[in-house]
């Protein structure tokens, strides 16, 4: 049996860890919403500023989950921690910005181009933590508990022990970010079941379809 041992959600206005809001968006601030979280949580990783929104969201939520599970990194080998993320619109937001760079801003931008793949956020998290485990990024029409549960089975069979799962849909009009850590050790917050995942989703994004 596996358990969700921590989770973090980001909506348009609220960042929560394990269901408790830790920071709300200041709409009067000149900083972007993700930058507000970065500063307020006193995270120190200058590369954050170079990341696209998908990677920023993944970075923030994964750091906050690590804080909520202080024993995580010591408990596993560097290749036992796997990452399974998904979203609906791939890297469309950054794709647009890259197209804009060569259609309206003179030349294709290399630093935008390298973020025009949805799995780059997995690379950013792996690099920061020196995690050499399995990675997967899928594009799904909507958050689907079955996808995570099925792929967790595959990863467990292949030797992964702690699996950071995530839904990362970040566009101009939408912020749906939910990351959750799944471990077999301990009792966690809740069992990683289809029903619990569905409930977690609805609690985080009550207005979402």
């Amino acid at each position, binding site marked *: 049996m596996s358990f969700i041992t921590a989770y973090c959600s980001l909506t348009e206005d609220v960042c929560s860890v394990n269901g408790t809001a830790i920071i709300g968006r200041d709409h009067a601030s000149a900083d972007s919403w993700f930058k507000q979280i970065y500063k307020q949580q006193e995270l120190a990783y200058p590369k954050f500023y170079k990341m696209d929104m998908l990677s920023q969201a993944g970075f923030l939520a994964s750091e906050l989950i690590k804080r909520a599970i202080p024993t995580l990194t010591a408990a596993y080998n560097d290749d036992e921690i796997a990452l399974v993320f998904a979203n609906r619109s791939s890297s469309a937001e950054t794709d647009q910005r890259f197209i804009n760079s060569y259609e309206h801003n003179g030349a294709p931008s290399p630093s935008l181009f390298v973020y025009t793949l949805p799995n780059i956020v997995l690379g950013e998290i*792996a690099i920061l933590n020196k995690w050499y485990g399995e990675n997967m990024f899928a594009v799904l029409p909507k958050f689907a508990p079955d996808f995570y549960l099925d792929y967790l089975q595959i990863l467990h069979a292949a030797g992964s022990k702690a699996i950071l799962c995530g839904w990362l849909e970040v566009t101009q009009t939408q912020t749906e970010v939910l990351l959750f850590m799944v471990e077999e050790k301990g009792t966690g917050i809740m069992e990683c079941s289809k029903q619990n995942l569905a409930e977690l989703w609805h609690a985080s994004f009550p207005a979402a379809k």
Partner: protein
Amino acid sequence: MIYIGSEVMVSPLGMTAEENWNSLLANRSGIAPADRAGFAGEQVWLSKIPSITGSRRFEKLVMQAMTQIEKGIDRSILSSSRTIVLLSSTKGELEDDINDPFGSIAGVLVRQFKLANQPLIISNACISGVLAINTAGGFIDAGIYDHAIVIGCDVVSDFVVYGFQSLFAISNKPCAPFDAGRNGISMGEGCGAMVVSSDRAVFKNNPLELLTGTSANDANHISGPSRTGEGLFRSVSRTLTRHGVMPGDIDFICAHGTGTVFNDEMEAIAFDRLALSRVPLNSMKGYFGHTLGAAGLIETATSMQMMRHGVLLKSQGFMNTGTSIPLNVITANEDKKLNTILKTASGFGGGNASLMIRKI
């Protein structure tokens, strides 16, 4: 046992696996100069399929491959609830719908082939294809599905050409993987597909055995290959160990071999660390270009054809050793019985993936 077969390839070298095989055996390449394809209007070497034109080129390619898949298997599995379709792609239908590049294709597949399950789209840069085949193996191994149809597809677009140009990663001649004079990639497009199943009877032709592999991140850089080949080393090590296969059991390696200086060097270092540097090896990118999300499927399908025909295909574009550790790059076609082969892939985001296929 997990079976793999009914492989399909659609590329400039042919619209079927057989046509592709005949072109490959004649060492023909799909890479040709494309006028004014570059950002500054310059000529760029590309592997493009001229017969697929107009809008929805991605969808046309996928349909072309699926129609052939249908012919190679027991059709009834298509609409079975025990079957999943896995689609590997980096940019999908970007050219048709920038905001929703994967929104249409899944629905089209469901309607056209009366699929019982929503296709799963896998987008992990250049390792997508190998990862998709491994996912198919994983699904079947875990008993979640009995059959998987795995498709890999990407088309050449201004977007990817300009992007790789901005990284100075495009070769000024047809790409030359592992060669001393290599200076970058040639972009390519195409579609590869195959069927993975727990049931041998679904295949009209003899299937092979899939030894499902693993992936590993380099944890090094989002767009630069690791200098030590750590991720590739770990992925292949785990894949070998998982199936109790020794390096000496591998008859052939279908490498990633993009033709950039750093990627090919990284692979040479990893294969040396794995005691695999003497195994006959090629890169298919000299034939197909770098087909991104399709590469893992097209190149695995080619490897399967090599096993069926008992031929080691020359690594197109290679002349002189160009890595700090020499590899056994195949310089001419050669007849050889191939029992166990290794396919690897490495890509942006630090991903590395590998799998093995064995003759039954």
